[in-house]
């Protein structure tokens, strides 16, 4: 099951040769692979649902919404736009260089390596793969071993549908990753934790390999007082959907914690409890709509967050767990200490701390004093608060009055900043992420301008000055020997 060192070596050699042959550069090849991927998904949708259920207990609707649908949409978008993306773009060249012309030509980087995370094991592998293929590269993907059913599925079916000389699936854990990282790649795309991100970038540095790191962070959600009660209901629905909906809170852009004004807290908590009951029923463990915790290790980690007595005291809803089924019910905490681990580490689970503030404007300072997150969510109609959030905080993205949907927009760059990562993808940004934009300058033999060449003298010096000042008229006069 684990890809051996020799297999890695052999795969890399073949991928390099395939790239060198120029085969993957044709638009025909790229389109064929994208179409094959779409076919793979259509033919095996059931198996994908099964694998996601095995690994994470995801319901089909969630699996479609967050993984299958996302990949199909991305592949279709790439197919429709591929030729446009591949075409060279004219670039204006300053008049000074007349009659030179400029152009930007995207070209593939070569052999790229994609690491994906276990929480969205299908989409986080295939979405970057779509970008890499669209850009004409050969690719090795290594899905996370913590989602073994999905990893096996990809290892089995990708070679059946796609060009196996160009696209390789590696399986295994940290040892296989280490092995992969020792080789030279033309780009590495990594989705995962900051800790492993550091290891990836350090390894990449040895070969000067460019990287894109999609990491995590604690995505705060600001909930302002909304005067219209139906707006409040919608806001809470979206927050609940954004916390427990995606993989039971195990999502990089999931809602991590909530910031509300003190006086709003009781109303918000009531609404949250009501909404949770509506979505997941009286006995959440029986609900089929909640994913499971991925494995015992993460289960323990989450239980540990609650073991701190100062934290356990603040649980106001939920809190029950079932180790055998790796299940944790939706849990709400009110004002756990901000120095507790649950408020300093990314939760990545179904625990929602609510932090109360005297005034909602304090949320800006709260967020600013912490590492830059992947996303900031804010539910508010206050335009000046919105302005402050946008201009005073920094994050990968900001979403007002909703959650998660920035992930679905092909026209928006998806990526972090600072500790939440660097680089971005989705839509054309995926194509760009795996391309090198080559600058082309088309010069002409005519005219020949003597002042460009030594030996230097006063006349030539003056010419150069005028040229850089873009003083074309002055240049002309100078050349004609007329003084200004």
């Amino acid at each position, binding site marked *: 099951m684990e890809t051996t060192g020799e297999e890695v070596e052999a795969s890399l050699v073949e991928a390099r040769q395939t790239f060198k042959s120029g085969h993957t550069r044709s638009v025909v090849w790229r389109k064929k692979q994208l179409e094959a991927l779409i076919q793979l998904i259509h033919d095996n949708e059931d198996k994908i649902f099964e694998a996601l259920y095995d690994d994470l207990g995801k319901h089909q609707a969630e699996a479609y919404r967050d993984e299958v*649908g996302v990949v199909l949409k991305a592949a279709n978008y790439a197919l429709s736009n591929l030729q446009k993306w591949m075409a060279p773009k004219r670039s204006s060249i300053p008049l000074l260089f007349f009659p*030179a012309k*400029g152009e930007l030509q995207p070209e593939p980087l070569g052999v790229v390596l994609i690491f994906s995370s276990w929480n969205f094991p299908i989409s986080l592998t295939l979405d970057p793969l779509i970008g890499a293929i669209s850009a004409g590269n050969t690719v090795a993907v290594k899905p996370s071993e913590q989602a073994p059913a999905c990893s096996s599925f990809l290892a089995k079916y990708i070679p059946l549908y796609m060009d196996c000389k160009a696209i390789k699936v590696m399986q295994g854990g940290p040892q296989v990753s280490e092995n992969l990282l020792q080789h030279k790649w033309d780009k590495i795309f990594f989705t995962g934790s900051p800790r492993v991100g550091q290891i990836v970038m*350090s390894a990449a540095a040895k070969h000067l390999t460019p990287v894109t790191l999609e990491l995590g962070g604690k995505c705060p959600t600001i909930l302002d007082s909304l005067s219209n009660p139906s707006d409040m209901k919608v806001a809470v629905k979206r927050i609940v959907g954004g916390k427990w909906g995606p993989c039971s809170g195990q999502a990089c852009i999931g809602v991590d914690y909530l910031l509300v004004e003190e006086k709003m807290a009781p109303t918000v908590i009531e609404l949250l409890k009501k909404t949770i009951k509506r979505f997941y029923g009286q006995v959440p463990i029986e609900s089929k709509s909640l994913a499971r915790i991925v494995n015992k290790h993460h289960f323990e980690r989450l239980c540990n967050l609650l073991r701190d007595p100062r934290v356990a005291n603040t649980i106001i809803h939920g809190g029950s767990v079932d180790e055998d089924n790796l299940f944790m019910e939706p849990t709400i905490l009110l004002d756990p200490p901000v120095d507790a681990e649950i408020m300093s580490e990314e939760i990545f689970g179904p625990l929602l701390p609510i932090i109360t503030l005297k005034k909602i404007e304090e949320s800006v300072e709260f967020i600013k004093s912490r590492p830059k997150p992947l996303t900031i969510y804010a539910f508010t109609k206050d335009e000046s608060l919105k302005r402050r959030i946008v201009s005073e905080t920094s994050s990968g*993205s900001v*979403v007002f009055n909703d959650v998660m949907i920035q992930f679905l927009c092909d026209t928006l760059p998806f990526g972090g900043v600072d500790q939440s990562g*660097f680089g971005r993808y989705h839509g054309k940004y995926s194509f760009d992420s795996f391309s090198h934009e080559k600058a082309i300058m088309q010069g002409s033999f005519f005219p020949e301008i003597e002042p460009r060449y*030594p030996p230097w003298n006063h006349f030539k010096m003056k010419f150069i000055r005028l040229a850089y000042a873009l003083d074309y008229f002055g240049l002309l006069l100078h050349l004609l020997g007329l003084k200004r």
Partner: protein
Amino acid sequence: MRVYFRSGATREASWRKQQLKGLLAFLKENEGDIMKALKQDLGKHYAEAYRDEVGTLIKSLNFALQSLKRWMSPKKAELPLMALLSTAEVMPEPLGLILVFSSWNFPIGLSLEPLIGALAAGNTVVLKPSDLSPACSSLLANTLRSYLDNRAVKVIQGGAAVGEKLLQERWDKIFFTGSTQVGRIVMSAAAKHLTPVILELGGKCPAVLDSLSWNWDREASIKRILVGKFGTCAGQACITIDYVLVEKESLSTVVEMMKEITGKMFGENPRESNSIARIVNKSHFLRLKNLVDDPAVKASIVHGGKMDEDNLFIEPTILVDPPLESEIMTEEIFGPLLPIISLEKIEESMEFIKSRPKPLAIYVFTRSKTLERRILSETSSGSVTFNDAIVQYAADTIPFGGVGKSGIGRYHGNYSFEAFSHEKAVVRRSFFTDFWFRYPPWNDHKLQLFKTAYNFDYLGMLLVILGLKRIKASHMV
């Protein structure tokens, strides 16, 4: 400096413009001192110093001042109809605290060009110029402060030890121009803090000189090659022409022309000529001397070869077909030694270049559209310039950067602004449109709706809602 950045002062357009204007004033008021420093460090002629450093900076500053407002404004992002009543835009914001390392060969230009981008993007900056160009380094450290906001821009002088210490701190971005070897060290240090980097490295930039039937073309090509090599910091430049590839047939003509034109440009006694720069220091001088000490290489010298250690002067030197395994053909030369490699057919240059690391630039002098197409599609490099050399550095509208071993990232013009910005996606949604099928508890009906929604199949959605259509049934768990 982080505290100052936090205050938001550097984000104002007015502050950024002030800094850029400050840089313009620095260049205009201290031109004489800048020229002196460049002469001292590298023996550059006034014209070369202006052309390659002061002039390009003035141009870039004017371009940035003109474009700043446009660069700073958010760009609307189109959303699908499904998103109803939502808007989205991509908004640039500064990264924070930037560290810029510059190289010794264009010590003013390579320090201030990235600084322009960093300041235009609203960041605070620490600049460490190279200690191998000490006069320029001191000038920047002592004089810049009167023109820029000292709470936001600091110049730190020193060598490798200072560089190492700086690398231990946490930065929001590191911009490095220099050798591949040090580039690795910078990236490894950046990895500890997950700091993104831009590395402008080097490589051996080849020039492909096709057989040109018209003398005008041939002369222009050779002049451009020679000034790009010997006339640009004596070949100590990342985008200089490292070596030339020609067809055997044209070899003798080319060599003759090169000798003649070199003589015209740099005089019969180049050492007397003030038109060629010096080698930066003894260590690099000896490195270059070492390249030609190899007897097989020495034997291939057809012009020049004289070296003066006391004056750190090497005259324009042309070699024909030195052995390909010799160091002069495997390491980046970075000096006024120009090897000419002869091939049976010019098309072989494709394979020659492909079998070597990707360079920062490839130069091709040709009238053949076929050759042009082949070079573009079969080779990879930071950039390709046809029928000219070096000038791409001065064009603000095309990106300047490498690929593979020649670097990561790019800058110049708009790309400088982007290099030091984070493009934040901002989405504004309405409470009004709330699709009920977004929320659990899940059922098949909602799954059907997801499928139509993702396909942007609005009619399909309507039909499913009305119960008139069913998407391919899946096994319900």
